[in-house]
């Protein structure tokens, strides 16, 4: 009796403990429901701008709209003039280069390369009017373009090659009467089309995000919580939160998933452990460029071919440009798995005039980080590769003049001559040009932050914890269970198993033989 009850006690405790281990702690449910409540609230604007007589008049110049804005919101224009949307540069510590003023204004990329000498075209996306080539206007607050960001009518547009001026078709009075907080349409008009077309640059920011489904982006989904860009990219005094590592270097002013979701948002602690070394985006953005393709490779060296003396374009079967005389040939990709890198929030950049070794691919921006660095996590990135023009004598990249106002001004898009394009561009950039150019391979790394998938579609364990071609197959510096093994341990282990099995079979066989012999002898 005593023994039975003891056994029952032991078994009972055992079962109870296993059940406790199985039971998941449900008390610390992530505050998702709270977040949904918070972002479902849409505040009504406190005023109706369409009733202001100041805005009902006919505006001759866009600057007059700005004056009308300032008549109520005084001081705001100056805030904008201190923001990166206006400055297009900021003082940053660039690793290996020191304290530099970097931004769109002076940094190179491997898409349309750089804005110097091309301002007339590039500054279509500047938050101001008249950024053509001189910079004197930077002092005038009336040149601040309030409407580009605050248009809620969906009718505002900037002129092509108009140095930031609005298109002539825009009814300024109508737009001025329909202003409010920036919408995805306002931000997307520039940020979805960087690099000269939809989704060219980012891969995770494109026109599909004007009206995405939950599968495309769980935050911005119109059939979901329908968040606007400014819900995460909040602003104080017109200084927006968030930046991109194509133009910035320091670990500051970042938008973080953790600010809303916390650093350990999972119910499962094994998943929470991952957050020490894995960024949220790595698992929760399994694919980018989900709707439209993004550019992966840009070969500028093929640019300039003409048909009957005229530029032409080639498209593939899906209607995507694969060749343009003005830009060269491209490769695109859709439904892409990101590449993955260690990243600690700082980056270094190739800056105009830096010498490099043309025999190797050049990283135009390089994301810093490693496994051993406690600030680093694994992040998803889009890698964009290009063949772009450089000075073969001086061993630095060339800022070419692409935009052409008239034939003969050196702009490649008018003259299709790299020699004059390089001369004009480097003159504007203030650097000597040797007269000899070539093309070299360059790379850019763009962290992927948008197009977060619904949680059911997050990357599964076995997509990384696998021996064959896992997502993190290329990411080194550490031991990952399921992917890594020590070859000597495997050799020892399987050798030992083989020896044991061989021993067992030999011994067993010998016993059988000996037994038979004995039987015969009896």
């Amino acid at each position, binding site marked *: 009796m005593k023994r039975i009850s003891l056994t029952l006690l032991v078994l009972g405790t055992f079962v109870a403990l296993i059940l406790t281990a199985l039971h998941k702690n449900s008390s610390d449910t992530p505050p998702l429901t709270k977040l949904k409540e918070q972002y479902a609230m849409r505040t009504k604007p406190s005023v109706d701008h369409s009733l202001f007589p100041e805005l009902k008049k006919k505006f001759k110049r866009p600057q007059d709209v700005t004056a009308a804005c300032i008549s109520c919101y005084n001081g705001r224009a100056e805030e904008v003039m201190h923001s990166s949307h206006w400055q297009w540069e900021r003082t940053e510590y660039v690793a290996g280069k020191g304290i530099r003023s970097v931004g769109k204004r002076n940094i190179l990329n491997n898409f349309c390369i750089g804005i110097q000498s091309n301002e007339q075209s590039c500054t279509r996306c500047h938050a101001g009017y008249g950024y053509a080539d001189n910079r004197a206007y930077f002092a005038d607050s009336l040149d601040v373009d309030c409407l580009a960001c605050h248009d809620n009518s969906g009718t505002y547009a900037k002129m092509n090659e108009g140095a930031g001026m609005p298109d002539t078709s825009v009814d300024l009075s109508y737009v001025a009467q329909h202003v409010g907080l920036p919408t995805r349409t306002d931000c997307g008009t520039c940020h979805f089309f960087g690099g000269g077309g939809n989704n060219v640059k980012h891969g995770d920011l494109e026109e599909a995000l004007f009206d995405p489904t939950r599968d495309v982006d769980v935050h911005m989904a119109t059939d979901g919580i329908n968040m606007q860009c400014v819900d995460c990219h909040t602003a104080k005094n017109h200084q927006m939160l968030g930046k991109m590592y194509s133009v910035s270097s320091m670990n500051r002013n970042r938008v973080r998933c953790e600010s809303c979701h916390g650093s350990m948002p999972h119910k499962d602690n094994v998943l929470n452990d991952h957050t020490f070394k894995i960024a949220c985006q790595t698992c929760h953005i399994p694919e980018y460029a989900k709707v439209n393709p993004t550019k992966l490779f840009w070969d500028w060296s093929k640019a300039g071919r003409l048909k009957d003396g005229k530029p032409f374009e080639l498209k593939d079967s899906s209607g995507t440009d694969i060749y343009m005389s003005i830009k060269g040939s491209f490769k695109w990709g859709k439904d892409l798995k990101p590449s993955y890198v260690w990243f600690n929030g700082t980056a270094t950049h190739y800056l105009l005039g830096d010498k490099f070794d043309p025999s190797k691919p050049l990283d135009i921006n390089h994301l810093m980080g490693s496994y051993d660095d406690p600030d680093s996590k694994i992040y998803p990135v889009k890698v964009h590769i290009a063949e772009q023009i450089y000075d073969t004598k001086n061993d630095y990249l060339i800022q070419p003049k692409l935009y052409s106002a008239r034939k003969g001004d050196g702009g490649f898009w008018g003259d299709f001559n790299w020699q004059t394009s390089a001369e004009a561009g480097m003159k504007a950039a203030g650097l000597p040009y040797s007269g000899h150019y070539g093309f070299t391979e360059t790379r850019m790394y763009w962290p992927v932050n948008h197009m977060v998938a619904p949680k059911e579609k997050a990357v599964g364990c076995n997509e990384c914890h696998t021996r064959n071609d896992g997502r993190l197959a290329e990411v080194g510096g550490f031991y990952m269970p*399921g992917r890594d093994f020590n070859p000597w341990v495997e050799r020892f*282990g399987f050798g030992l198993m083989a020896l044991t099995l061989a021993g067992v079979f030999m011994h067993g066989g010998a016993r059988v033989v000996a037994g038979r012999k004995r039987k015969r002898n009896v």
Partner: protein
Amino acid sequence: MKTEYIYHRFERFWHWMQAALIIFLGVTGFEIHGSFTFFGYEQAVEYHDIAAWGFIILIAFAIFWHVTKGEWRQYLPTWRNLKAQADYYVFGMFRNAPHPTKKTVISKLNPLQKLVYAGLKVLIIPTMVFTGLVYMFYRYPQRNEVLSLNISGLQTVAMLHTIGAFLLVSFFVAHLYLITTGHTVTSNLRAMITGYEDLPDESITVVNEPVPAISGEAVPETKEVAQ
């Protein structure tokens, strides 16, 4: 032929529970190691963790039992008869020689078993438990935080855990085979299931050294069975 009571009830429960857990830990563990896919990685990790806790609890009970009953002395390695036992496996067995050591509830392990099981209990299982716990509770170095267990990487821990696992697999293979080397092919297995083992009468040549000072629990009477 007589039937001896060899294995206590708890001992048998412990043995089979341990066998099941180690097999399960082996299957899930080698899946986590990447050797094959069966449950799926996520499930394998979850099951491996649960089984590991079960195993730790079982070990706690087993240690308690061994200490309170003095049974731990069963595993004290001895030189005595070690050679005789080895000779038996290499030569005697093939000549139908009797087992060189007598199995009793007082001394149920032969000298080779003592050695192997002591190694298992003192070296391999503790290594597996310790590296397993590190695996569960490590934290990568984080700034400005109180840390439970800081390691810079899993490399060493994983290597030790894997070596231990391979040793256990080899032990398991040899153990399965050695079940068949009792008085009859099935007598060892029966003993571990029922607690009773058929043993030959007077043919024992060397009596295994009795274990001193075992706390006196009533041992069921030895049943004489007609030959």
